[in-house]
């Protein structure tokens, strides 16, 4: 018995120390962001400087139009999600409950998106955005993500788990397809929608290469691109306090969301393993 206690104490110690190591970047970005710019960390004084200051945040806010970046990021992730919910619900239902000619072929074409992520096809998709005359607009950010193979697979699987008798009963009562979706399928699939939403929001909130390529005007660029600009201007002068302040402004919404809904997040990300 005492041996087991020793083993589990060892495991506790390992958990705590690994967690501490993993937290170091976050802890030090926080410390740096509140530390006076004139006092870089030195031997013997690597934690807080002589005083706590907000000047780094003020300086970071000067570098880029953060309010616009926030607006763009929010419009981007919710603009993608809103359309995705409609498209994956429609296609998910078709693949779950309807038989039609070419069903497997069409499903295969959609699944290609899981195999060939559009983020890799940068050059061609950039040309498409140019051809559609959408360069440097928020539409350009969203458009490639409006169809989601992952979402279609997830909803197909979820809808299949709902007893068909429920749909039949509603149909006998004279319900239209839209009413059946609204009153049967969608309400019974809320957990799947939440999982899909969290995965979709967090992945698009973090998108960088694509938005960077298809936009030029600051106002239509998301937070990640603003952060890149901040990085470019502060790295030269080694103004790391300012950079850390800006970085924290960008990552804060997701981190707070995660702290509030930890369990949900982890379960949702486990679902994303469908890929």
């Amino acid at each position, binding site marked *: 018995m005492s041996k087991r206690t020793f083993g589990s104490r060892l495991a506790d110690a390992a958990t705590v120390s690994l967690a501490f190591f993993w937290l170091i970047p976050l802890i030090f970005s926080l410390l740096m962001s509140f530390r006076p710019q004139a006092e870089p960390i030195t031997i013997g004084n690597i934690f807080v400087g002589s005083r706590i200051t907000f000047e780094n945040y003020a300086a970071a806010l000067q570098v880029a139009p953060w309010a616009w970046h926030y607006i763009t990021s929010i419009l981007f992730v919710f603009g993608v999600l809103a359309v995705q919910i409609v498209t994956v619900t429609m296609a998910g239902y078709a693949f779950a409950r*309807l038989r039609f000619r070419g069903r497997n072929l069409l499903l295969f074409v959609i699944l290609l998106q899981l195999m060939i992520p559009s983020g890799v096809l940068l050059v061609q998709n950039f040309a498409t955005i140019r051809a559609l005359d959408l360069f440097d607009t928020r539409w350009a950010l969203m458009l490639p993500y409006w*169809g989601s193979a992952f979402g279609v697979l997830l909803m197909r699987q979820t809808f299949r788990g709902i007893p068909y008798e429920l749909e039949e009963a509603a149909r006998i009562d004279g319900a239209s397809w839209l009413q059946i979706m609204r009153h049967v399928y969608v309400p019974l699939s809320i957990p799947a929608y939440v999982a899909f939403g969290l995965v979709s929001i967090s992945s698009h909130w973090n998108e960088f290469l694509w938005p960077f390529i298809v936009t030029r005007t600051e106002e239509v660029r998301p937070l990640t691109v603003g952060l890149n600009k901040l990085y470019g201007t502060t790295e030269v002068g080694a103004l790391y306090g300012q950079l850390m302040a800006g970085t924290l402004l960008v990552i804060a919404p997701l981190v707070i969301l995660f702290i509030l809904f930890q369990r949900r997040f982890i379960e949702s990300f486990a679902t994303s393993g469908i890929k």
Partner: protein
Amino acid sequence: MDAQAQPITASVVPISRRATRSWAQRLFPYLLVAPTLVFVILFTLLPATRTVVDSTMEPGRRASDPFTFVGLENYGDLFNPSHHIGSRFTRILGNTLIFSLVTLGVSVPLALLFAMLLNRPIRFMGIWRFSLFYPSLLPLIGAASIWAFLYSDSIGLFNTILRSFGLQTINWTGDPNTVLWSIIGMNIWKQTGYYMIFYLAGLQSIPRDIYEAAALDGANFRQQFFALTLPLLRRTTLFVVVISSIFAFQTVEQLQALNQGNPADRGNLLLYFIFQNIGERRNWGYINAMTVILVAILLVFTISNFVFFEKGQEDE
């Protein structure tokens, strides 16, 4: 996919029952699928096809000049170490392979360790889970700018610590011999938490009584681990290995903040190199050829993922 079709047939509307379907009813499924299909065709199928076609072309000098067909010449140049693009490409492809293999080799076992540690009753669970998982939520570019500070040559945290012990400092992202390892280090920190959740799900699906029976038979922790845990998690491991490989070929945004591929491409990765050359019209043939190679590598991983996954479903 058809492996799963069997049990579902019962709940699908049989076609025969509605022998006389109107054209509107017949069109309905296609209408439902159409929106998704349009976007997949426009941003995946067409560009993928065009990438393959354009990889056999050489762009003209000016935007108005036509492309000329050059067959597989672009690919030949890419794998020719004495060619100006080939020398860079082979080095960068090598970097990408090392990057993906080392990340995988360290972060997958580490993810299993994390999962086993968190799969026990422990106080303040939320804190430990947050600490190990939060990096995978951060935007890569944000994570990288934090690490740019940790790695900074003059005033970074790591070098300050080294100095305080009187040790030689390291130019983490500036030294050609360390840059790739620095990128890998950050990547392990970033991804391990994500792989952990699949192991956590896997561990939670193993019935407790198997371990109780093994313990009654006198199996110690090590024996239980190698005889039970590892074999029972085989599918999870295969899955995690595949997704981490796929990830490794797609995650390059950290380079933008850490080193921009420098010095001398020693810290460059394939997709980032493609991104860097997007404005170079004369290199478009090469970019398309590199994209084809990248997609081919990804396809191998994804298809093996599907094969494992489907096979696993049949096993059950």
